[in-house]
C-alpha cells in the first residue's frame, strides 16, 4: 500500500485515541471533550451570531488568500479555524481585526453591518486579537502595555486603578501577573496572559487567538485552554486558529476547515473525528505524495554530522541547547520536531558557528568544527535553508540572479574578482534548466517577489549544489501544495544521492512523510527519538509538548 495511506492511518488512529479515549492526554481539561452538544446547540439556536462574515474575499498578488468566506461566530462558543499553513487563516483574521481591508464581502456584529478600517474600529465593536507574535512592547511594563490599548483612559494615567483593574480580571480568570513587571522579562506564557487581560479589559466580546499554543509549554497550553472555557462560560466568543487537529478536537465546539482560502466546511465538534478532519484539511488532490521509501539504515554509511552533548546559552525567548547529542549518516533524513522556540533554531546556528556553544563538540564529516569559518563549513558541502527566509535567506534589494549566487559568487563567472553577470546568468540557466521548481526572472528585484517565490529561490539555491549535508528549516513553508510536494521530492532525491538532511519542521505530516528518524526537541533537550516505523503524529505531538 502507498505510504500515503499508511501515513493517513497513523495520523487518524492517533486522533481516534485523542478524541475517544482522552486518558493521560491534555484532553482531560474541563470544557474540552466534556462539552454537552445540546449546550452548544442552545447557544447557537438562541440568537443571531455575534460575528458574521459574508463573502469575504482577499486577493494578494498571485494568490487568492480568502475566497468568499462565510462564517458565523456565536457568543459562548469556542470556534476553531483549522487549516494547513497558507490556507488563509491568518489573512482572514487580520481582515476581521482590521489590518487588511477585504476586496469584497462584509461583516456584521450582532446583526448590524460593521465596516472595519483599522484595529481601532474592530476593538470598538468588541473584537480582540492575540497575535502569534504578540503586539506588546518589551521596553514597557505590563500596566503600560495594557494602558496603551485601553480605550478612554484619563490623560493622567492612574497606575493604582489600572493595576486594580488588571488584578481584578487576573483574579477572575486565574491569570496571575505583576502589573509593574517589565514585559521584556516575562515568559511567553505570561506575555500571552498580558495579551488576554488586555483584550478582556478592552471589553472584547470576540477573542481571536492566532496559533496561540505554538510558543507555549504544555502546562501553559493546558492553562490557556482552561481559561478558554472560563471565558466561554462568561459568554465570550472564542475564535481559535490552529493547524493542530489534536488541539482543535480537544477544545472546539465547532470547527471550520479552511483550505486554499476557501471554507471547506463548518461542523460541530461532536460530528467529526480526527480522521474526517485530516481528510478535510489535507483535501483530496494530494495524490502524488512523495515516496518515502523506508531505507534500512546501513550502519556502514559514514556519519556526516554529529552533536556530542552540546550546550548553548538561551537567547531572549528561545531555549538554548541543553545536552543535545545527535548524529546523521549520509543518505538519511533526520527530522527535528518541536514547538518553535524549544532550541531547534540553535541547532543550525551553532553548527554554522553563529551561536557559540558553551560545552560539547560538533563533528562534521569527522572533523572537529571549532574555529571553522562559516564559509569553510559551507565549502565542505553544507547547505542551509534558514528559518526566516526574508530575514536570513536573501538580500531583498538584490536581483534574483544576485541572490542565487549569494556568498559563492567566486564559484561563478570566470572566477576571480571580476564579475560578468551575463556569464553568471548563463551558467545559472545551465544549472537550473533541469531544476523542477519555477523561478522568477533573473533581473526581478527580490523584494518585489511573493513569499513562495522567494522560498523557491532559496530552496533552489541550496539544492543545486548537491549538498552533502542540508540543514532545512521549514523548507515548504509558504509554498502551495503542488510546489511543496515537488520540494519534498527534491529532498528525497537529495537523500537518494547520498546527502544527509537535517529537517526542522513544525509540520508533523511533512516530517513523517520524509524522515528516516525523528527527534523531538522540548525546552532545548532531545526528549524522544522515533524510528521511521514507530513514529506517529500523535506520539510526536505529545512528546513535543513535554509529555512522557
Amino acid at each position, binding site marked *: 500500500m502507498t505510504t500515503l495511506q499508511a501515513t493517513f492511518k497513523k495520523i487518524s488512529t492517533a486522533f481516534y485515541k485523542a478524541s475517544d479515549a482522552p486518558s493521560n492526554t491534555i484532553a482531560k481539561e474541563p470544557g474540552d471533550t466534556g462539552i454537552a452538544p445540546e449546550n452548544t446547540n442552545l447557544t447557537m439556536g438562541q440568537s443571531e451570531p455575534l460575528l458574521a462574515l459574508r463573502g469575504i474575499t482577499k486577493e494578494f498578488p498571485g494568490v487568492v488568500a480568502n475566497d468568499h468566506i462565510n462564517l458565523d461566530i456565536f457568543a459562548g462558543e469556542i470556534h476553531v479555524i483549522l487549516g494547513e499553513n497558507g490556507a488563509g487563516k491568518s489573512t482572514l483574521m487580520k481582515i476581521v481585526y482590521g489590518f487588511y481591508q477585504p476586496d469584497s464581502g462584509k461583516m456584521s456584529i450582532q446583526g448590524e453591518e460593521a465596516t472595519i478600517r483599522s*484595529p481601532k474600529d474592530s476593538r470598538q465593536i468588541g473584537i480582540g486579537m492575540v497575535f502569534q507574535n504578540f503586539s506588546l512592547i518589551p*521596553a*514597557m511594563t505590563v500596566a503600560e502595555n495594557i494602558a*496603551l490599548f485601553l480605550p478612554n483612559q484619563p*490623560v*493622567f494615567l492612574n*497606575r493604582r486603578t489600572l493595576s486594580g483593574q488588571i488584578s481584578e480580571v487576573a483574579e477572575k480568570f486565574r491569570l496571575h501577573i505583576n502589573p509593574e513587571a517589565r514585559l521584556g522579562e516575562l515568559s511567553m506564557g505570561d506575555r500571552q496572559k498580558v495579551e488576554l487581560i488586555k483584550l478582556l479589559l478592552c471589553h472584547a466580546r470576540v477573542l481571536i487567538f492566532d496559533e496561540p499554543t505554538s510558543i507555549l509549554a504544555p502546562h501553559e497550553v493546558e492553562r490557556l485552554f482552561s481559561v478558554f472555557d472560563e471565558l466561554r462560560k462568561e459568554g465570550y466568543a472564542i475564535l481559535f486558529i490552529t493547524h493542530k487537529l489534536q488541539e482543535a478536537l480537544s477544545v472546539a465546539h465547532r470547527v471550520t476547515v479552511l483550505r486554499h482560502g476557501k471554507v471547506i466546511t463548518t461542523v460541530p465538534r461532536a460530528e467529526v473525528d480526527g480522521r474526517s478532519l485530516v481528510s478535510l484539511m489535507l483535501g483530496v488532490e494530494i495524490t502524488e505524495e512523495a515516496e518515502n521509501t523506508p531505507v534500512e539504515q546501513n550502519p556502514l554509511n559514514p556519519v556526516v554530522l554529529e552533536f556530542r552533548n552540546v550546550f548553548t546559552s538561551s537567547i531572549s525567548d528561545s531555549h538554548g541547547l541543553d545536552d543535545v547529542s545527535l548524529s546523521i549518516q549520509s543518505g538519511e533524513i533526520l527530522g527535528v520536531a518541536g514547538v518553535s522556540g524549544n532550541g531547534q533554531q540553535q541547532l543550525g546556528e551553532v553548527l554554522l558557528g553563529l551561536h557559540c556553544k558553551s560545552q560539547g563538540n560538533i563533528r562534521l564529516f569527522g572533523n572537529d568544527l571549532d574555529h571553522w569559518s562559516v564559509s569553510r563549513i559551507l565549502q565542505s558541502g553544507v547547505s542551509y535553508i534558514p528559518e526566516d527566509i526574508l530575514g536570513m535567506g536573501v538580500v531583498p534589494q538584490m536581483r534574483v540572479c544576485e541572490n542565487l549566487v549569494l556568498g559563492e559568487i567566486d564559484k561563478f563567472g570566470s572566477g576571480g574578482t571580476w564579475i560578468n553577470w551575463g556569464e553568471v546568468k548563463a551558467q545559472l540557466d545551465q544549472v537550473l534548466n533541469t531544476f523542477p521548481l519555477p523561478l522568477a526572472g533573473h533581473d526581478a528585484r527580490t523584494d518585489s517577489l511573493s513569499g513562495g517565490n522567494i522560498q523557491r529561490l532559496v530552496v533552489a539555491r541550496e539544492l543545486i549544489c548537491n549538498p552533502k549535508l542540508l540543514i532545512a528549516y521549514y523548507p515548504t513553508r509558504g509554498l502551495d501544495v503542488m510546489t511543496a510536494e515537488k520540494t519534498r521530492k527534491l529532498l528525497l532525491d537529495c537523500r537518494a544521492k547520498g546527502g544527509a538532511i537535517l529537517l526542522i519542521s513544525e509540520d508533523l505530516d511533512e516530517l513523517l512523510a520524509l524522515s528516516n528518524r525523528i527527534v523531538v526537541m522540548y525546552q532545548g533537550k532531545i526528549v524522544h527519538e522515533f524510528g521511521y516505523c514507530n513514529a506517529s503524529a500523535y506520539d510526536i505531538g505529545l512528546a513535543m509538548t513535554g509529555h512522557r
Partner: protein
Amino acid sequence: MNSLWLIILTGALTGAMGPGIPVLYATYGELLVERAGLINLGTEGSMLMGACFGFIATVETDNVAIGILAGSLAGALLSLIYAYLVIKRHTNQLATGFTLALFGAGITAYAGKGFVGSRIEGINPVAIPLLADIPLFGRAFFQQDILTYVAYIMGPLLWAFLHYTRPGLSLRAVGEQADIAFAGGRNPAAWQFGAIIAGGMLAGMGGAELSLGLTHCWIEGMTAGRGFIAVALVIFSMWSPLRAMVGAFLFGGAIGFQLQLQSIGAPISPFVLDMFPYVITLFVLTFWTGIALRAMPEGLKEVLKMNA
C-alpha cells in the same frame, strides 16, 4: 588651597547654569524627538532660528514674552521642514538634519543682519527669596532668569509626561514600535510629526534663552555647535529628562570650570576641557552599553541600523 578650590567651585557653579540652560532646552526637544524614534541633527538650526527670530521679535515689540513665543515658533517652523521631508518623503534623517542645521544658519545670518546692533532689555534674573541665600549654590541656581526656572521644572514635568500620561505613553509606544502603537489605535506619523514640532519649539526656546536671557544680543552663528552638544547630551542622559538636566549642568559647569582654571593659571589646555561633553558621552555609551541599548527606543535603533 581649600579657599582656592572654593573660589574655583563658586566660579564654576556661577558659570554652570548660564550656558547650560539653552542646551538643556534643546536637549529636552531632541529627547522628545528621539523618544518618538527619530534623530534630528537640525536642532542646531532650530536653536539659531529661535535665537534670531526671538531677538528680532523682541526688538520690534519690546516684549520678551512675544520674543520667546516667536523664537519657539521659528524653531518649530524649521523642524516642520524636517518633519515633512522625513515622515512624508522618507528622506534620510541624518542628511536632512545636517542640511537643516546649515539652512538655519543661512536663514538666520540673512534675516538677523540688520539686528546685530540692536539693544534689548532681555530677560533679567530674578532671585528666589529664600533659596537665593543658600551659601554656595544659592546664587548659582536661584538667581537666574525665568526661563531657567522653567527649565528646572520642565525636566520633572517631561519625565512625568513620558511615564504618567496617556500622550506620553503613546509617544513612547510610537518610538518603541510604531506598528504596535498603530494596533493600539495611534497614528505613528502624526505622533512623530507632533514630537518633531514640539522638539523644534523647545530648541527654539533654547535659542531664545541664549539670545534674550543669557546674552541679550544676536550675532550670526551664536549657538556655536550647541545644538549638536544637545544631541550628545540626549544620548548621555539615556533618554531621561532628569539625567538630561544633570548633563546640561555638567556641560555648563565644564565651561565655567575651564575659565576658572585659566584664571588661576592652572596648566590644563582649555581644549581638553572643551572635549568634556563629547568624551563623557562616548564613555557612557562604551561602558554602559547594555543599559544604553535597553534605554534606547527601538525606533531609533531602526534609524541607526542597529537591529541588523
